[in-house]
């Protein structure tokens, strides 16, 4: 910049200061948040439209799937294994667990392969790389929204009532979405380098399904082994689900804070969530410029 005015070479008879910053290469977030949003939304809406494309019942499947699983588990745990009998709102709580876990597994499991599924975009267009895992999360959120409507209807049928604490629901969903986004960022770039991420994550999801109070309640675990119940609640997903059950379905269910043994202990799942989010973002940001080259 300093020598521009005196020592202009014939090839460059212009002020280089006018050029502005050089290209930075592909990034995770890009420079234009509006474009980021448009892209994520366009990708998500496409996915949403395509999901049940060609099936006779179309979108109804998105609602039927959790309901069918719910039906099976409900029969098993009330008629075969005596786990749900006597628990108020067991059916709705089971359904809530299934719906939330469905969201969790769709958002994170779908994120694993999302970058390589969208390879043609990544290799041919300059756009914020994070838009792709974000779109997966958005699609999952759309499905969750519809499924939650079913849960509410069930709740009403089972004799639940509208309460002020329902206001917690959107915040809890946002918390869970942030957790999913952290995992999504981590596994999506991980998969680009190591294809084993996919089977590994499938196993982890399986474990999480049983390690989270989905078809059982945390009170059942507390009765058997109080410390195990607390450890189960360290899982951010379990904490969110428990709070959801308390706030939305049945106030007699312990809050997440009560289940974990004190509000202070909530820092553990919160810390895990934040850690995953930060590590996920940092990893994604670091890898984003190379994704097009490695794929």
């Amino acid at each position: 910049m300093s020598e521009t005015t005196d020592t202009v070479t014939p090839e460059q008879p212009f002020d280089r200061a006018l050029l502005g910053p050089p290209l930075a290469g592909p990034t995770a977030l890009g420079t234009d948040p509006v474009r980021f949003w448009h892209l994520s939304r366009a990708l998500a809406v496409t996915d949403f439209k395509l999901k049940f494309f060609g099936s006779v019942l179309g979108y109804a499947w998105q609602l039927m799937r959790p309901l069918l699983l719910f039906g099976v588990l409900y029969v098993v745990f009330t008629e075969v294994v005596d786990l749900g009998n006597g628990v108020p709102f067991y059916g709705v709580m089971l359904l809530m667990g299934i719906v939330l876990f469905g969201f969790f597994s769709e958002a994170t499991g779908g994120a694993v392969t999302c970058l390589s599924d969208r390879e043609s975009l990544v290799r041919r267009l300059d756009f914020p790389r994070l838009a792709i895992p974000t779109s997966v999360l958005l699609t999952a959120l759309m499905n969750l929204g519809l499924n939650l409507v079913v849960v509410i209807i069930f709740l009403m049928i089972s004799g639940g009532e509208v309460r002020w604490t329902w206001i917690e629901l959107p915040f809890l969903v946002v918390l869970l979405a942030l957790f999913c986004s952290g995992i999504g960022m981590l596994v999506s770039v991980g998969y680009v380098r190591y294809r084993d991420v996919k089977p590994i994550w499938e196993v982890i999801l399986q474990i999480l399904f049983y390690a989270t109070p989905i078809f059982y309640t945390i009170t059942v675990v507390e009765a058997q082994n109080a410390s195990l119940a607390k450890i189960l609640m360290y899982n951010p997903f379990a904490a969110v689900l428990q709070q959801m059950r308390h706030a939305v379905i049945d106030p007699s269910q312990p809050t997440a804070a009560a289940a974990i043994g004190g509000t202070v202990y909530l820092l553990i799942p919160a810390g895990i969530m934040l850690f995953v989010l930060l590590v996920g973002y940092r990893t994604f940001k670091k890898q984003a410029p190379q994704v097009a080259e490695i794929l």
Partner: protein
Amino acid sequence: MSTAVPAIVVDGVSKSFELPREQVHTLKERALHPFRNPGHDTLHALRDVSFDVKQGEFFGIVGRNGSGKSTMLKCLANIYAADTGEIYVRGRLSAFIELGVGFNPDLPARDNVGINATMLGLSPKEGRRRFDAIIDFAELHDFVDLKLKNYSSGMLVRLAFAVMIQVDADILLIDEVLAVGDLAFQQKCYDQFEVIRRSGKTVLLVTHAMSAVQRFCDRAVLLEHGNVTEIGTPLLISNRYQELNFSEEARAIAAGGVSAIESEGEGEGTRPNGGPKDTIVIADFGGDRYGDQRAEIIDAGFEDARGLRQETLPAGKTCAAVFRVLFHERIEDPHFELRIVNSGDDIMFAASSKSDTGVFEAGDEGHFRVYFENVFAPDRYHMSPAVRRQPGGVWLDFRERLRSVMITGTEETDALVWVRHQVAMTRLRADGTAEIITHSGAADVEAAAHPASTESPA
């Protein structure tokens, strides 16, 4: 003063890729061999590339396969980050590396246009507003709600191109999407390029089609092995490009000749009763072979005017195409023929033994040589020699594209042949005066055309 500032400045950009010799793709491999460093080859795709593109310029990026032009394009499009050096882009740049990015076959055109427009940088609202213009340009009114998988490839291309030109950008980066669609649509695209060009937008066109470069570009850069070979006018760039191609091909043929000798042994066992002195030529270009091979084409090539084998021949001189046939059994009146095709597979020339050729006994050889005036335009030509039992009969041996020759020349032509000619141009004014404007070319052509003209001028 802003016009003096280039739209794009590429300043000393280098980009290399590490190609691992052994791709470590799973954690298990990592875990089992934690200390194994598979090593990698470094591919220098771009080395210290610098050029400027002025505002409103139609600029070509030219190079052969592997020259680094695609990497350059991806760096400009901000898909790859450059290792060193800087790229400055003034204004909004849209890159069209492929038509129809994000097209989904299961969705109708209406949805796809929206998605594609969003990908290319329009807001969804703007995309909807321009939908009609897009469909108008693509001429697809009747198919708006048809799923893309039911579109013909031509319709797809039209739709994609129509979306592309609707995108607002100051700088367009286009990768070889010119030659698409049917002729009428191609013309429409070319017209559109003219419009874009006149509208003052800066366009970068990445291509290896010299005709496009000459037609549209103001300037171009020629890349070779990641280096800038030349920056200049389209004509200069095309000439340098042709040179590069010729020299490279000549080298490749020389290398191919060596391998042909090395692989001689393979032919030995398969021949029914070949003599030891024979050399079976290996086709340069892997053409098909037909016939029962009771007589075999054992050698073929091109000769210059002095009768010496050549891999490249100058245009405009006499030359010869030659092949030898070894007979493994007695054949009466075999028929020899050869065809020469250009790189576009047009048959440029065919010749055959006109009369009865007599009896060839087992072990005899037939040499077939065609002398001809080389009027071919600069290009690569392939010879397909054949020998038949009788004219129009079954093939004894027919080897497609057995040998090739590069014709080089200085004459600029996009025609198939370059015939020696003279150009005479006269202006006849209304007042009756005549004025010769041009009179150039081969003088003897005119002399032959008007043998009497020197004696009785008009």
